């Protein structure tokens, strides 16, 4: 009976430790993903929108901010 309790305790401890590790991995991954979503480094895939904005500025559709919004 004692041996059964001992092995059951070990199994529960191992399962709890695994659950904590899974949670940590999930939480760290979630935070990193949110950070990457918040601060998105421009790449070739975002070139079209970037060029669109620059084109709006070049053509004078939008003007530098001087206290009022433009568009």
């Amino acid at each position, binding site marked *: 009976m004692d041996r059964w309790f001992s092995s059951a305790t070990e199994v529960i401890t191992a399962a709890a430790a695994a659950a904590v590790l899974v949670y940590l991995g999930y939480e760290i991954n979630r935070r990193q993903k949110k950070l990457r979503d918040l601060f998105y*480094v421009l790449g070739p895939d975002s070139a079209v929108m970037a060029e669109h*904005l620059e084109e709006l500025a070049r053509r004078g559709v939008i003007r530098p901010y001087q206290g009022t919004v433009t568009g």
Partner: protein
Amino acid sequence: MTSESATTPQSPFESLSRTGGDGAEVAPAIAPTSARKGAARDARFHIFVIDSGWNCAASKVLREHINVISDLHIDDELYVLDRATSIALLRHYPLQVGRDPIIAVHDLRPHHRHRVKHTHGFRMHLGILDSEDQVLAALRMFARFLIRHRNAADIDELVRQDLHRQGLAGAIEILGGHEHQKMIE
């Protein structure tokens, strides 16, 4: 983007002091800045603010602080798109809908690593944040980051490094139990 390295001054004013020829600290001349007038000279960045008004908390905080951002980055060109222009633009880029307000920073002196050249810089998607406090903290990070690294050679790499540091800091915070303390509070 908030992590400060050991060599980084904690106060933005510390970085303003310089050592003179006799070893004494000499503060550079500081002219008061007010609302920008005319085009920026020697601009390093083009900064675009796109806001359709979708996320009310983020829009409110951004509107309240746009003049501070403008004055802090007086040497760069800041373009604030109005609601109609923002919506017209976002209609072309459906993946960005709901992630605005967006602050797009384009590096005018980019460090090209590959043959295929594209616009370098980064975008900040404030619309994914939930509370005004989070948006304000993100805006502070943004302003501090750009001022600190205005003369950096490779801004993309610095953003990535800062994100990596933030990821590690988050991991340490979780391991340190701060999250549990917050939950209990």
